[in-house]
């Protein structure tokens, strides 16, 4: 591999993700859930309207997770599969999904970390299966003719125009 590659999220995937996130929120009584990839891009969110900048939040989440990954290795653990940040009123629980994405759940006193942790496990399982399928598709999409490979094909002129002064 020479670079980081590309992957795509189609509307069907997005809907499935949202269904899983919504079920998680309903059953754990958490406020909202976000899905962030390891490079810091927000993939999806569900639940209460976010009162902060989700893009900045996503980049910090990925950095937080990466830093903790390195800390884990330093103490001889392969990874910390989940992280918990406790606040006075608001708390967050972060869990790794298939080493590719991070599930972030924000919750308050209406529920407990135990409940969130328990329910997150199931969602991590569901999402892992979904992402395994998505990445498999992305890997086999290297051949031309697929949705992903063809998106910007022939768009060189448009790209040039975008950057003309």
């Amino acid at each position, binding site marked *: 591999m020479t670079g980081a590659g590309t992957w795509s999220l189609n509307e069907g995937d997005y809907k499935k993700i949202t269904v899983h996130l919504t079920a998680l929120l309903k059953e754990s009584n958490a406020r909202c859930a976000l899905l962030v*990839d390891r490079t*810091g891009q927000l993939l999806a969110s569900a639940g209460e309207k976010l009162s902060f900048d989700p893009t900045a939040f996503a980049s910090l989440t990925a950095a937080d997770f990466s830093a903790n990954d390195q800390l884990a290795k330093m103490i001889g653990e392969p990874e910390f599969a989940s992280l918990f940040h406790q606040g006075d009123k608001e708390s967050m629980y972060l869990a790794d999904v298939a080493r590719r994405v991070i599930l972030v759940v924000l919750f308050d006193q209406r529920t407990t970390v135990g409940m969130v942790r328990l329910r997150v496990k199931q969602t991590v399982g569901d999402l892992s299966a979904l992402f395994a399928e998505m990445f498999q598709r992305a890997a086999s999409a290297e051949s031309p003719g697929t949705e992903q490979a063809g*998106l910007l094909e022939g768009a060189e002129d448009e790209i040039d125009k975008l*950057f003309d002064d």
Partner: protein
Amino acid sequence: MSMINYASREINCKLVYYGPGLGGKTTNLEHVYGKVAPDTRGKMVSLATETERTLFFDFLPVDLGTIRGFKTRFHLYTVPGQVYYNASRKLILKGVDGVVFVADSQIERMEANIESMQNLYDNMAEYGYDLTKIPFVVQYNKRDLPNAAPVVDLQEQLNPGWPLEDPAKQKPTPDPWHEGDMLVEQVEGTWIERAPYFESVAITGDGVFETLKSVAKLVLKTLS
């Protein structure tokens, strides 16, 4: 790793500004932040020390326009330049789509530039990325300073070119930004390729957008 989100109709790409400490990476981002329309950029996040030295990264998302109905959103990151912070610096490279190396043109910073460039190659290699095969541009910053080294010296030290093995690319290619310079040429029987370079004064904004546009364009072309 660029991500195409068909649900939100966005193409997300990650650009990293790399280089020695106090070279102007954060200043590049600050200039972009100040100049682009507020509705095309997100919040700028800086994880810095009390003395404003970057501790972990600066982050700025910018929309550069729409292609085929997809918003092209670039996430700009800087790394901490100080040698000491290598562990966190390396983390920022994860999933990178394009790299800008911000060199400090001052003669006395030449060694720091070389060390940082080597460190970039090493850190990329640890992720299995090959810097010579991904969008990569070099920016010579602080061109306004009296002790700035001549560009030709900087090029020789930091961007001498790498062997080009792909026969399809082995054809003389002039540098579109600098008349008389070549991006691909044959030197003593060996084909070499250099990264495009730009001169800048990030503090006034000179060259900042030129650099950003060139690397962003290269990244989008890799998708096409």
